[in-house]
Every structure is written in structure tokens, then in C-alpha cells.
């Protein structure tokens, strides 16, 4: 039997009465890079947020490294309830996440932001954390901004700090939730560059929600198209981008292409 890094089994998520995810099942191998695409409101962000239990799916299981993660089935309520916080946090340490809105800690410097996780959660010695954090910040090209505050650097730089902050926890899985969607066009390239570097150098299992199709084409092992809370189509990027089978995938890709052309890029 093949082993998977992440297994999602029949995930259902509701927001109030809205049924956002309608039974998504997905297996992801170690070191695989999966890109999730789909129109806004399709549930792709919700799906990625379920993987580290920022959203608790009412039904379904998340299995990481062969172990069920985060939810306990409550027979009486007939839905999942979250596991104890300690158990959640143990697994979350292995899963890095980068958000659309960066979510850097504004009261801490760039260096302190990156040091926070290892220092507080893993309780590593301060000198060691500092040394490693500087290495990670150099890697994302921000070695000269150590003592700046997030409000003093650009959005693209903030997002690269956020990536370094996640990497500092030495995760095995990285989740990217539309990491470039709130950036000005000229700042997107730098962030994508760093992400590409991660793919080639680090051997992380990565799940990326993005609208950057040419980037997806370059890095993805597999592309997954989601709409209306279900997986419409999946396959290698060459197939999805060149010969999509599903009609809605074709339409979506057409629209994205038109926007990209209008933008002159």
C-alpha cells in the first residue's frame, strides 16, 4: 500500500447554512507540490485552512503521516469537534502556513517575527534560534532588514518574512493561501521566486492556492481544479493547462488568461 503524507477523506465544511466543501477527498504524497486553482468562492482557501485545522470540517477526516489529526467524531452532535489544543499544536508545528494578508506580528521586528515560533513553541535556545533565523532571512533576501518593523517594509518583503517565519519551524508541509493575491504586480515576482527556490531546494510537501497560472505550470506536480466545493478535475499541469477536460475548467482558464493578457503580462 502506498503511504501518503496528507490524506483528506470526504471533507465537508459548512459556514452556517452554506455548504462550502462538499465531500473532498485528496491524497498527497511526500514532497509533492500540489497547486489548487478555482474561481473565488469555490472553497479552495477553506480547504487549505482545513488541513491545519484553522477551520474544523464538520465531517470527514484529515490524516497526516498516517495518523488522524485534529478532529474527534461526536456521535451525539453528529459532527466533528476539535481535538485538545495540545494535540492540535503538536501537528501544527509540522505544517507551515503563509496567508494572503501576511499576518506578521506588527509589534515585533522582522527578526523577532521569525524567531517567535522556535523560541516559544519549540523552546530552542535564543542564540541558536537567532542564528538560524538570520540564515532563513538571508535566504529570502531580507538579511538587511532584521531590525525593521513590518510596517516599514513593502508587502512583498512582508510576505517573504512570513515565509521565513514558517520555515523557521522546520515544517514538513507548507500551505500557501493565495500568497501573492494582495500584492502589487511588481512585488509578486520576488515572492514567487522564493517559493520556487523552496520547491527545488527543500523537498517540502507543498499545497499552494494561487491564481498565478504560469507559476503553477512551472512548479506543480499536480494541479487541482475546485469549483462549488468539489474537485472538478486534477492532473499534471501540462494536462490541466493545455487539455482541460471539464468545461468549467476550460472556461475558468480562459477567463484567467484574458485577465493576464489585459494586464499586459
Amino acid at each position, binding site marked *: 500500500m502506498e503511504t501518503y503524507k496528507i490524506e483528506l477523506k470526504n471533507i465537508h465544511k459548512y459556514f452556517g447554512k452554506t455548504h462550502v466543501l462538499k465531500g473532498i477527498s485528496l491524497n498527497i504524497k511526500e514532497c509533492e507540490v500540489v497547486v489548487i486553482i478555482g474561481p473565488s468562492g469555490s472553497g479552495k482557501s477553506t480547504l487549505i485552512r482545513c488541513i491545519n485545522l484553522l477551520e474544523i470540517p464538520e465531517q470527514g477526516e484529515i490524516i497526516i503521516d498516517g495518523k488522524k489529526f485534529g478532529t474527534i467524531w461526536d456521535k451525539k452532535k453528529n459532527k466533528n469537534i476539535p481535538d485538545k489544543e495540545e494535540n492540535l499544536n503538536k501537528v501544527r508545528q509540522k505544517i507551515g502556513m503563509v*496567508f494572503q494578508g501576511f499576518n506578521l506580528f506588527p509589534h515585533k521586528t522582522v527578526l523577532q517575527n521569525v524567531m517567535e*515560533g522556535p523560541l516559544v513553541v519549540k523552546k530552542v535556545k535564543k542564540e541558536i534560534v537567532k542564528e538560524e533565523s538570520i540564515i532563513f532571512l538571508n535566504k529570502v533576501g531580507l538579511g538587511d532588514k532584521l531590525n525593521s518593523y513590518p510596517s516599514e517594509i513593502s508587502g512583498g518583503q512582508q510576505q517573504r518574512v512570513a515565509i521565513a517565519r514558517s520555515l523557521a519551524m522546520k515544517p514538513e508541509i507548507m500551505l500557501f493561501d493565495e500568497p501573492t493575491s494582495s500584492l502589487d504586480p511588481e512585488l509578486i515576482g520576488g515572492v514567487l521566486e522564493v517559493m520556487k527556490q523552496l520547491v527545488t531546494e527543500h523537498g517540502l510537501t507543498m499545497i499552494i492556492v494561487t491564481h498565478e497560472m504560469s507559476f503553477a505550470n512551472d512548479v506543480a506536480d499536480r494541479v487541482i481544479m475546485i469549483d462549488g466545493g468539489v474537485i472538478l478535475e486534477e492532473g499534471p499541469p501540462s494536462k490541466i493547462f493545455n487539455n482541460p477536460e471539464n468545461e468549467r475548467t476550460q472556461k475558468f482558464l480562459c477567463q484567467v488568461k484574458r485577465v493576464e493578457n489585459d494586464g499586459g503580462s
Partner: protein
Amino acid sequence: MIKFFLQTIKDFNYLLPGFYLTLQLTFASFAIGAVLGLLIAILRMRRKRGIFYAISSWYINVLRGTPQLVQLLTIYFFLGMYVKTTPFSAAVIGLSINLGAYMSEAYRGVLESIHKGQWEAAKSLGMSTFSTLRRIILPQSMRILLPDITNYFIMTLLSSSLASVVSLRELTLLGQSYVSKTFRVITFFEVALLYFIVAYPMSKLSNYLEKKWKHTK
């Protein structure tokens, strides 16, 4: 002229024990009230129904909807019937539970105004709720709240003069009794000055810190 100075020094000398007592009362009430308010705010934020929420809502409503003077009198005389209360302990209880009610609402507003992305970022690093509050949410809240907190401190200092009604010989009551003994009405200015020299630097400090932390908000 020299006589005037000597007399003034004598006045202050007489008022000094009251001034110390006022400071003790203020610091004790402020410390208890601020912690109480914070605890209530955090607990109310985490669960928005249930018995605790209902009780704490009433606590806040009642204490904010009745005069502080009446609260002090009630605590001193009502509590005094059942437990041994000194004027000082009654005053500390009265001032701190009043402050707790006001501050819990101030805290709650700010805690809820911190973007939920901050919680999510901390969670995704594997941080516990307690660490997140202590290291991420509270420091940011304090920076926003600081001018308010300073105001609450000044408010506590000034309303500590109400403790004179429970016969605590703090600054105001001491000044009053001094005036009735000596007919030196100017003493009230001296009493006011003693309050002012504590309150004024506090508000200056708050302005300074507010400016210093501006970019980290």
C-alpha cells in the same frame, strides 16, 4: 514670606501620611481592578453564552449604572455587617470592582479589534492560546489601550478621594479635618496639588509611549 513657607511646609508635613495612603489605595485598587477586568474580558471573549457570561454582564451593568459613592457606602456598611472590614479594605474592594467593570469593557473592545489573522498566524506556528494571548494579542492591545489605561489610573487616583466617606483618612479627608482645625482654607489647594503632581506626569508618560509605539501598531 519666610513665615508663609514654613507654614506651607508644616501643612504638607501634616498631609503626607494621607498622601501615602492615597497612593497605596490607588496602586492596590488599580492593580486588582486591571487584572480583574482583563480576566473578565478574556473569559467573556472565549465563550459568549452560559452562566458566567450572564453573571459578568450583570456585574458590568450594575457597577457602571450606579454611583461609585453609593457602591463604596454599600460595601463598607453592608459587608461590614458580615465580615470585619477596615475602611482601607472596603475602599480597595469598592474601587477595584468598579474599575474592573469599566476596564473589562475597554479590554474587550481592543482584544476583539486585533485582527483574527494574528490568532491564525500564531496557531499555525503551533502556539497555545495562552502564549498567543501573552506574546501576540496582549502586547498589541496594550499599545492601543495605553492612553486609556493611563486615564483609568488617573481616574482611580482621583476617585480614591471618595474613600473619605468610609472614614479612611486619606489625602482628602485629612485635608478636610486639617482645615476644620486650623481654618487654613488654602490647604485645599495643597491637597489638589498633591493629586496633580501624580496625575500630570502619568498623562505625559502616556503621550510619550504612544508616540514611541506609533509605528508598531
